[in-house]
């Protein structure tokens, strides 16, 4: 059976034009997807039942027993951390936030180790953004700063920018200019009109120099700024000012290097400056399929997009203190519920060492690095494959993920609702 217009759940592009062929309850072919999306959907390798650690080995268990054990671990904890959420649907994320409130825990999502600093910058100076449809139809200048879409968002260029035909951009390859700014000549730089190579840690200075030039104060810019010549900076500034509609997409090259949130703030303020001359927008290249959704769901329930601490009985937010990395580095939490992510693979070693010392429950269908350090793993179905639900694209557009095969595996919402009900019952509420 051929199913058309399937949404890929892998990255923040949430490409919604996949053709998927299903046979005997299995996905056998995917057309239109990039290699990352295709490999995610075909040959999916999962746990067949919940597993629990038993001494030096592992045994299978039932969903009932696993949920009971998970509930006891959370009930016994004084400072539980509920982390992950970015590869599941919004419905499950919402229950996760309510569960954190019920047990007075900290709930954090994977933006804490991707675009958390971008959110901090946006909270300081705002977000002049727009939908990807606007970019596709209007933008004649694209800047990729500190990101490599060819490897991380392989269809971003073909669906929205470099190679996408738009309503006002009929011949994208000729009508759109592309500038890539990065510390290394990555694959995306090879297709750029202009490549700006910045010395590691030099983004803030280069952004400041561009702001000065756009402001008409190029005279204060030295001959070279973090490895970039003044001539090239002036040329880039002119390209930006002469564009009809410019779009800056930035990645973790700004959020994970020296300056972090201040780099992003400077990039937003450059965008602000450019809007004195023409139309310009800026947006983060969100990684996980529904990481933007975690920020939406957390915010509409608690008022805060990530790192929310309920230990005071109210929602408290202080990134740097209530963020998952900091809580783990300080050895503070005494139990952790991981949902739809893999912190043992993507957190620094000192944080994983603490996770290995405390009881960790993981709700995820795939055996991953966290499997080896958890006490209990409960497999749920996968949003966009055998579970339906809502996800948010990187530009904030909500898109409905379809269940394209039926596996009989409970979805994350069902597992978390049962866990929430059991904890609430045990607390006598």
């Amino acid at each position, binding site marked *: 059976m051929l199913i058309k217009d399937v949404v890929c759940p892998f990255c923040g592009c949430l490409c919604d034009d996949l053709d998927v062929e299903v046979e005997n309850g299995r996905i056998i072919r995917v057309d239109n997807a990039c290699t990352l999306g295709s490999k995610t959907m075909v040959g999916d390798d999962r746990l067949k039942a919940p*597993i629990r650690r038993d001494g030096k080995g592992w045994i299978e268990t039932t969903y009932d027993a696993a949920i009971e054990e998970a509930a006891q671990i959370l009930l016994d904890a004084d400072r539980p951390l509920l982390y992950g959420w970015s590869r599941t649907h919004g419905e499950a994320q919402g229950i996760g936030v309510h569960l954190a409130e019920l047990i007075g825990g900290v709930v954090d999502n994977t933006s804490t180790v991707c675009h958390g600093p971008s959110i*901090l910058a946006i909270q300081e100076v705002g977000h002049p953004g727009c939908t990807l449809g606007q970019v596709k139809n209007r933008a004649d200048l694209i800047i990729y700063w500190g990101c490599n879409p060819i490897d991380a968002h392989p269809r971003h260029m073909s669906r929205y920018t470099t190679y996408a035909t738009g309503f006002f951009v009929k011949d994208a390859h000729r009508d759109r200019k592309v500038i890539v700014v990065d510390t290394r000549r990555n694959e995306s730089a090879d297709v750029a009109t202009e490549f700006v190579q910045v010395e590691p840690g030099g983004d803030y200075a280069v952004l400041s120099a561009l702001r000065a030039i756009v402001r008409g104060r190029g005279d204060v810019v030295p001959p070279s700024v973090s490895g970039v010549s003044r001539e090239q900076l002036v040329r880039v500034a002119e390209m930006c000012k002469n564009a009809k509609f410019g779009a800056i997409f930035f990645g*973790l090259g700004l959020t*994970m290097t*020296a300056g972090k949130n201040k780099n992003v703030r400077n990039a937003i303020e450059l965008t602000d400056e450019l809007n004195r001359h023409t139309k310009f927008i800026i947006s983060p290249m969100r990684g996980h399929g529904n990481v933007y959704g975690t920020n939406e769901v957390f915010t509409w329930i608690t008022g805060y997009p990530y790192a929310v601490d309920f230990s005071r009985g109210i929602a408290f937010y202080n990134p740097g203190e209530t963020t998952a990395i900091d809580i783990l580095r300080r050895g503070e939490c005494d139990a952790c519920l991981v949902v739809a992510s893999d912190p043992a693979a993507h957190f620094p070693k000192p944080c994983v060492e603490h996770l290995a010392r405390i009881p960790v429950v993981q709700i995820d269908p795939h*055996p991953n690095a966290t499997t*080896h350090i958890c006490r209990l793993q409960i497999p749920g179905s996968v949003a966009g494959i055998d579970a339906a639900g809502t996800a948010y694209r990187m530009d904030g557009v909500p898109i409905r993920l379809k269940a394209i095969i039926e596996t009989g595996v409970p979805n994350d919402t069902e597992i978390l609702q049962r866990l929430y009900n059991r904890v609430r019952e045990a607390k006598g509420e």
Partner: protein
Amino acid sequence: MKVMMNTGRTVPQGESVERKHSPEYESAASVCFIHPVDMMVLGIEDGAHIRLSGSGGSVVLTAVASETVEQGSVFVPLGPFSNHIVSGETHCTGMPDFKSTMVEIIPTEDPVPSVAELMEALGGVRYAH
């Protein structure tokens, strides 16, 4: 040799990221892209094993020659291998220095560990899928 370590997504790492127990993932995530001139300074060939040590710990990786990285810096795919080197310091931002960690590189004959071995060393129990 002291260099700046950058980390990030690569296509081979992303293709196999949901199969972290697979040989494809382990080989995709345990490489270190390094400039050929820096390899000459270290006296190693393409495919040699090198030990990277940073503020968070150390790990053995396979060196891969690449002119896309500058001399004095290396690129390692994101994942449990690169994160074995990064510290948990966030400078009050919540974000570690994933893309800006100084590392010391030395040639080694030690083997590249598996993901399960990395987790066992931290106190985990191997799950054989």
